[in-house]
């Protein structure tokens, strides 16, 4: 291996490493921690509640393994990402959604697991700052 190819390999390795970095940084709040700590890690402690962010969860979920959640942030502008937290779960951050294009409506619907009655929080990152909305769901049969 001459010097030129050695440099190429080195740079290639660096590119691979740096492309993996965001995922590593993410592991910080995707793991087992308290929900409030996770919120602070995501927002840096700066966030405000807003009624224009709509979080729809059932008041009472019969089956804790399939709880439908809908986040509607179409009333907000410049939405970059949506985070969903289920407070009582061991891993509170259930999903992070990054919007890569303006073509996508700031809207998402999916299903999460819940271990017990819990508060659910949606955090939306906009170009201005972080907006949150919360709701409570009771679970009759846990599934986490």
């Amino acid at each position, binding site marked *: 291996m001459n010097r030129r190819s050695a440099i190429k390999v080195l740079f290639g390795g660096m590119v691979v490493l740096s492309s993996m970095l965001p995922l590593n940084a993410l592991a910080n709040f*995707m793991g087992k921690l308290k929900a409030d700590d996770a919120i602070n890690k995501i927002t840096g402690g700066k966030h405000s509640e807003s009624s224009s962010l709509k979080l729809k969860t059932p008041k009472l979920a019969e089956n804790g393994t399939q709880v439908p959640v809908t986040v509607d942030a179409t009333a907000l502008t410049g939405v970059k990402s949506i985070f969903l937290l289920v407070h009582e779960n061991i891993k509170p*951050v259930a999903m992070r959604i*990054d919007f890569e294009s303006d073509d*996508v409506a700031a809207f998402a*619907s999916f*299903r999460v697991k819940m271990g017990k009655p819990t508060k659910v929080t949606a955090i939306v990152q906009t170009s201005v700052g972080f907006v949150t909305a919360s709701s409570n769901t009771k679970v009759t049969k846990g599934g986490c």
Partner: protein
Amino acid sequence: MAKRIKVRAKMKKGLIEVKYKVTHPMETGRRKDKSGVLVAEDYINHIKISKNGKDMLTLLPNSTISADPYLFFKMKGTKGDTISLSWISNTGEKNSANTKVK
């Protein structure tokens, strides 16, 4: 194990409505099987959705997403656009699917 991706992409009120159902057990690593042995963690942790080859969404699900993840999104577009989804699990498994908007 067959891990299918079911898609429905339809135009509605000028937007494409994309619904996905990805067959995946989404094991949290905390469940025990019948013999009392813990089932290893196995969940999708990276999903990419694109339209006509352009990235639209990146999803980073955790193990607390329900088994057989169901996803619903809306995006601008026209009939005949190609929507594709690809996922990677924490065990390194992969799958992808393309579909045309109806």
